[in-house]
Structures are given as C-alpha cells and as structure tokens.
C-alpha cells in the first residue's frame, strides 16, 4: 500500500469517512495510544508534574486522552476539520485549533512544558501546493515551536520517515531553529513494530533556572 502522505493532502486523506474509520478502528487506536504513551514518557517531565502540553496533529484526540490520564492539560491542533469534528463528538478535553503546522503557530514564548506529535511530521515533507516548500514549512514550524516551549522543554515526534534524506532534512531544520536532540528507535530489529521518535530539546534549563 502506498504511504498516505503520497495520496493527497492530510485534510483530504483524513476527510469525513476516513476520520471516522481511523478513530473507530480499535487496533489503530491502540497503537496510537501506545505511541502517545511512549512520547509522553520521553518528555521526561518530573513525576506528578501537571504540564501544559501541545499536541501537534491531535486528530480526534486519541493522544490527548493519554495526556489527560497523565494529569496534563493539553492544547491540540489539526489541519483536518473532519478529525476535529470527531474530537468534538468524543468530547476531547483539550483546546482544539484548526491549524496547519507548516504555517507555524501563534503561541506566546515559553507557553508549553512539552510537545508531542504522533504520525504527523512526515506530512510536512510534502509539497501539496505549488506554494509549499518543505524546507520553508519545516523551518517555520520548528522556529515557532521552539519559541512556544519553555527553555529546557522537550518535543517528541513519533513519525514514519521515508528515508535517511528525510530524517536529515527534518533534523537539519530543527537544529537551525535552535533545537538539540536525536532519534530514538524502538524495536529496531522488527520490521513491523519499529518506531521512530525524534526527541528535541528546546535549550537548557540552567541550574533549574528557566532561560528565556
């Protein structure tokens, strides 16, 4: 089967029918929840610390549920209105936005204690419109994300890189925007279970003092 990001833009691929299917499929939901739990773990927040967390590409709110269970307050955005509609039907507890990650985001500096994103990042490497330049969109995304995180916070992206070039492109853009970090690979020897997590750090928290 071809990769979904090769078929059409995300708001089309995850249109009405697909949004319901995606959310109603218990196997997909279970895998999503598992990856979200792993991403939250990689955020490495202090035990019992209730954070204000951003979910990039929140979809129907599956990963938001995981954040909620961990005691966090979350804010999510997605470019697919049909997915957000499902999130509303499911009474998602986070604040939802209709937003395109490639256009950057509108949060004040230092807003979030962390960011997670499940199965989204590879979409940003697409050029769905002639005006889309993946490098420019990735740069706008990472630079505004960097600013919206408090210093020392992490952003964890589970994603499906197509090849090494794509990883290099993404990593290069993130580093130019100030992030440090690297790739965590779970189950590296299993073709099916193998999962990639890009772990980015937004600067350092020096001696517990937040550097803005």
């Amino acid at each position, binding site marked *: 089967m071809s990769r979904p990001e090769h078929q059409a833009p995300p708001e089309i691929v995850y249109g009405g029918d697909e949004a319901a299917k995606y959310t109603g499929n218990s196997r997909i939901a279970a895998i999503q929840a598992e990856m979200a739990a792993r991403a939250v773990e990689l955020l490495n927040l202090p035990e019992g610390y209730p954070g204000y967390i951003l979910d990039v590409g929140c979809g129907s709110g599956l990963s938001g549920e995981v954040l909620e269970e961990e005691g966090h*307050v979350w804010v999510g955005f997605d*470019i697919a209105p049909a997915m957000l*509609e499902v999130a509303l039907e499911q009474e998602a507890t986070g604040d*939802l*936005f209709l937003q395109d990650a490639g256009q950057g*985001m*509108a*949060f*004040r500096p230092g*807003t979030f204690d962390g960011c997670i994103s499940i199965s989204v990042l590879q979409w940003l490497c697409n050029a769905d419109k002639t005006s889309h330049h993946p490098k420019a969109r990735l740069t706008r995304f990472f630079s505004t994300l960097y600013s919206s995180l408090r210093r020392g916070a992490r952003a964890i992206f589970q994603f499906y890189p197509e090849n090494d070039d794509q990883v290099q492109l993404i990593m290069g853009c993130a580093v130019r925007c100030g992030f440090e970090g690297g790739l965590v690979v779970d189950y590296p020897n299993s073709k099916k279970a193998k999962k990639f997590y890009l772990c980015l750090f937004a600067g350092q928290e020096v001696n517990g003092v937040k550097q803005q």
Partner: protein
Amino acid sequence: MRLITHNMLQCHVKGCNANNFPLELQEVVLEQEEAELNEDFLRNMLGKIEYEALVATCLKLDINDLPAAMPADAAYNDEFLQILHRVILETHIKSGKMVCPNCQHIYAIRDGIPNMLLAEHEV
C-alpha cells in the same frame, strides 16, 4: 477554547510582531463547564499568565471576579486559585472571533475551535 489558552495566543501573520497580543474577543458566546481543580497546575501556570491582559479580556466579557492585580501570595491563596480556576479553566469560548489589535486579522471561532489558518500572502 478555555480562557487560559486565549491568554497564550498572539497573532502569527507574517510580519505582525508587535502589539499582536492579546487578540481581541468579539461577538463571543461563552459556556461554563465544570472541571476538576488542580492547584499544582495553576501554580505552574502563574508565571506564564499575562495577568493584566487576562483581567482586561475578562472585563470586556463581563467577568468581574478576578482581582485587578495578582495577589503576592497567589500560589498558596486558595480563594484566588479557585476564582482563577473558574475563570481560565472552566470558561470556554464557544463561538465568536479574535481580532489582532495590530494587523486586524480575524480568527473565527466555531464550535469552540479557532481557525488559525492563514492565506498564502500572510505566511
């Protein structure tokens, strides 16, 4: 969208970098939804809230419960934390619009969801 999140938003139109906060709420419909009080979370947020802007926004929405200045002992002032909780975590904006005070861009809110999409020339 809860009022806490509105307090974290600024305009993100290209080149709109000054006087772009807070986005002015117009024609809003509000709804109160009960939520569990989480004092640790509120304490965590105290340093991030732009309090003056929050109070000003609330006054325009006829929410007069917050003191004009944040109490010095805010983190352990139970009465204040309860009011703050009610205002920023239980007050939801269901519909309306947010207008940038600088470039006048209008972000519409429908079903509680702000539309943050920009036109090509605004990116």
